[in-house]
């Protein structure tokens, strides 16, 4: 292999250059009249009232964690997949043991409900989810358990009365 990856390098450099060259060329011709209002953060027409940092929900981390674990599983199973056919049934069983042990972990997080995005649904508290449009109760459940952190946007209004 002299330099098989030249194609990738050319595509990478070309892609980066394409973006920045276009931005540079456009900066030559476009008008540039900044003002305070234009430079402020756009937040759906409202005034920005908090820092852009807000605490994300833990569930994102859990999902990313499971992704990383099964990513690593691929790193181990790829060499196995290349050779198991030539090594016979024993190698196949060895790979199955590997996958089986990992599936124990998947079943654990599944059974414990860490994979349910909205925990209220899994616990069966809101049985009418599947039929008909979501009731007010359901929407409240989704809001409370699905989006923690961040400013409360929905105000007092209708939701407050149901609790």
């Amino acid at each position: 292999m002299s330099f098989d990856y030249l194609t990738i390098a050319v595509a990478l450099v070309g892609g980066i250059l394409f973006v920045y060259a276009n931005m540079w060329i456009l900066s030559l011709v476009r008008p540039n009249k900044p003002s305070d209002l234009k430079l402020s953060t756009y937040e759906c027409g409202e005034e920005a009232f908090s820092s852009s940092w807000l605490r994300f929900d833990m569930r994102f981390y859990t999902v990313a964690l499971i992704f990383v674990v099964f990513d690593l599983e691929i790193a181990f199973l790829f060499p196995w997949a290349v050779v198991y056919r030539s090594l016979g049934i024993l190698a196949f069983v060895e790979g199955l043991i590997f996958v089986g042990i990992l599936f124990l972990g998947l079943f654990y997080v599944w059974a414990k409900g860490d994979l349910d995005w909205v925990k209220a649904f899994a616990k069966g508290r809101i049985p009418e989810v599947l039929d008909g449009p979501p009731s007010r109760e359901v929407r409240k459940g989704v809001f409370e358990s699905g989006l923690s952190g961040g400013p409360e946007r929905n105000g007092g209004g209708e939701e407050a009365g149901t609790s």
Partner: protein
Amino acid sequence: MSAEILAFLVLATATVAGGVVTLWSRYVVHSAFGLMLSLLGVAGFYVLLGSDFLAVTQVVVYVGGVVVLYLFGVMLTPPDREERSIRRIAVAGIFAVAALVVLLKAVFGMEGRWYGVDPDRGPASGGAVIREVGNAFMDKEAYLLPFEIASVLLLVALVGAVFIARREGGRGS
């Protein structure tokens, strides 16, 4: 200057610059992206060293998985504006210089060739190496036990990390 050496220099610059950004930036998000640049540079080195499979693994696992995990860690915790302290910089600098001396001595002190090179072992290509890696994983004289234990390690990490990170008694659980 051949293309390989040019690639080496570009990758070395990217790797070291990413590392410097990682440990020097005041913003943890910038640190995470510096780490990503550094890890991509290391993946490029794996390509240069002929380990194609490891390069792909590096990109898929590190850049696609671990850095994302770090970014979620950053978003789950607030920015921590730490003070720079001269004392810490001095102590860390002393240790870093000491480590640099030791490592340079190790690299330049090596004499001759690497020991134990099989003379019959011909030039290998990336496609053949992945087969050899698979055979080593499946060979019970070689790495079969570590291979299976790795799955136990992953299982423990999955269960343990999910258990630790689970919100106890808070809202929504």
